């Protein structure tokens, strides 16, 4: 078991691409951390630096209070699950799981015992003697997981392990992963570009943009109090409505607010914190999306567009004129650079 510490870590690739800049955070032992952000923001690079697959160009990485710069990946007591699984195609499932253990020189009976246990846990027993090419995507994913588990590492690293699977399987494996984390009690660091995965899995989320950390916090902290417009628009589906203060919508919202900070750039509001009321801000419905349990209502306030989340059974159609009421304390304020400002 181990805690991790990243201290002002940076990575500039040989071509001069700066993939990660000045990243600092600490991970407690046994925590489930999710690195999330759009494609190309440096998540994989960060994970690979922790794994030792990529050399660090700045700063320091510590695993279990030991600086691991220059330590071989095999000596860091970590395991990694790759997006494309990276199973050894010429070995059976059993061979894939045994490989890391044999490299450690573990005696055969113990290797067998560990494989048997992992196979039982992951329901891989019928497939132990198959080659990866004879497995489905979900099964391959489990083998990759098994290969990590048998080594009993103190840190598990996952690089978008579910993104090659279909939506249904993804939901199922997501739940299994969370369960796995609880049973093993090890530190998990999980990379994804999918904010739903991040929200549902993480103890804490590290959200990145263009090589920088935007915010670190629990899923609910990020959801309720995004540190920037970037976070506000990345987390949540549909995302927070972020409106320029110069627009009609923002002005109408602000008019109802008692205390407003100066130098505002944007005003944000979550779709579920608005409702149709008897009095409030006038708006026109442009589109209604019934999703079953809820309905997404697209609105127009002057030139501004926003989305409101409403319960099921909304009896209105596009073109209807309504009044929008806002819950108290629902507004979020951002300055001109998109950073959050408190009232």
């Amino acid at each position, binding site marked *: 078991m181990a805690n991790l510490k990243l201290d002002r870590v940076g990575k500039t690739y040989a071509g001069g691409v700066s993939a990660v800049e000045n990243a600092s955070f600490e991970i407690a032992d046994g925590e489930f951390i999710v690195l999330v952000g759009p494609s190309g923001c440096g998540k994989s690079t960060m994970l690979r630096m922790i794994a030792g697959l990529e050399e660090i160009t700045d700063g320091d990485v510590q695993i279990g209070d030991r600086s691991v710069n220059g330590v071989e990946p095999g000596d860091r007591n970590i395991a990694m699950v790759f997006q494309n699984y*990276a199973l050894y195609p010429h070995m059976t499932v059993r061979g894939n799981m045994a*490989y*890391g253990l044999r*490299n450690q020189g573990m005696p055969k009976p113990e290797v067998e015992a560990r494989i048997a246990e992992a196979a039982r846990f992951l329901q891989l027993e019928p497939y132990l003697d198959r080659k990866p*090419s004879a497995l489905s995507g979900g099964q391959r994913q489990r083998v990759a997981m098994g290969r990590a588990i048998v080594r009993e590492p103190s840190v598990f690293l996952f690089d978008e392990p579910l993104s090659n699977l279909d939506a249904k399987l993804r939901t199922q494996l997501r739940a299994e992963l969370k369960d796995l984390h609880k049973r093993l009690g090890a530190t998990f660091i999980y990379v994804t570009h999918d904010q739903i995965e991040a929200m549902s899995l993480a103890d804490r989320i590290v959200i990145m943009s263009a090589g920088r950390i935007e915010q670190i916090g629990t899923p609910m902290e990020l959801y309720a109090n995004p540190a920037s417009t970037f976070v506000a628009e990345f987390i949540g589906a549909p995302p927070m409505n972020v409106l320029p203060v110069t627009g009609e919508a923002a002005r109408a919202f602000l008019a109802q607010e008692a205390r407003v900070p100066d130098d505002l750039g944007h005003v944000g509001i979550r779709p579920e914190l608005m409702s149709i009321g008897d009095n409030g801000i006038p708006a026109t419905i442009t589109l209604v999306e019934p999703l079953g349990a809820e309905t997404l209502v697209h609105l127009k306030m002057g030139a501004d567009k926003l989305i409101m989340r409403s319960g099921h059974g909304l009896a209105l159609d596009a073109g209807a004129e309504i009044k929008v009421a806002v819950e108290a304390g629902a507004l979020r304020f951002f300055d001109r650079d998109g950073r959050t400002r408190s009232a």
Partner: protein
Amino acid sequence: MQKRVVFRNRWLPYLLVAPQIAVTLIFFIWPAYQALETSFFVEDVFGFSRNFVWFENFTRLFADKGYLRSFWTTLVFGLSVTFLSMSMALALAVAANRVLKAATAYRTFLIWPYAVAPALAGVLWYFMMNPSLGILAYMLEGTFGVDWNHYVNGNQALLLVIIAAAWKQISYNFLFFLAGLQSIPKSLIEAAAIDGASPTRRFWTIVFPLLSPTTFFLLVVNLVYAFFDTFAIIHATTNGGPADATSILVYKVYSTGFVGQDYGSSAAQSVILMVLVIAMTVVQFRFIERKVQY
């Protein structure tokens, strides 16, 4: 769906393939038939008459110690060339793969030998290893005290043609190995590194097994090359000598026929070679089709 060209004219398609068929008939089928026919005859020294002798040419060959020795020489030569050129090429490809960005120049240099004509390659090595004026022979003598003279020493002569033939083939093998290495996903190597395998162990347990389709293909190609395609190198370097020490089967066909003027025996030898090459081609297609199982 298949796209098919439909010819209006009945004769046009035949006309279009005619040149290829003509080339095959004139330069392959016809000589092969001639060789097959000649191998059943014995001709007198002046070429005035010839007698049909059934399989006498073949039985004589297999009773001939010199011919059997040539089989052995060919085997030693073929296996050595194949092993030497493939292992060198693999080592170079692994090195190139590691530093691929800087590898363009490196790759170009490595491809050069393949562009050199076999006879030129032979002459090149002939000069470098020439006992009286060759630079390599001089260095061998000076550094290791080896008295190099492949005109006298049969083993040295064989070694010389092996090196020359292998050198020529390295580029070809290198290109295939490099392509093979680049088609191995990097994440497999990384997974193995995380699994605690040392670089050497990674190579032998992951990279080498995954290269096996390439290796097998090259094995057959190199053996065929060494057995049949090295005539020019040997001819330019050692002339099959000294005392037939470098006379592989292909060279023997030439020396028996054109130097010894024994056309029947020479033809019989080439028929044997033909059978050999057909067998190797069959092996190659059989196994390459099936690829290596994973």
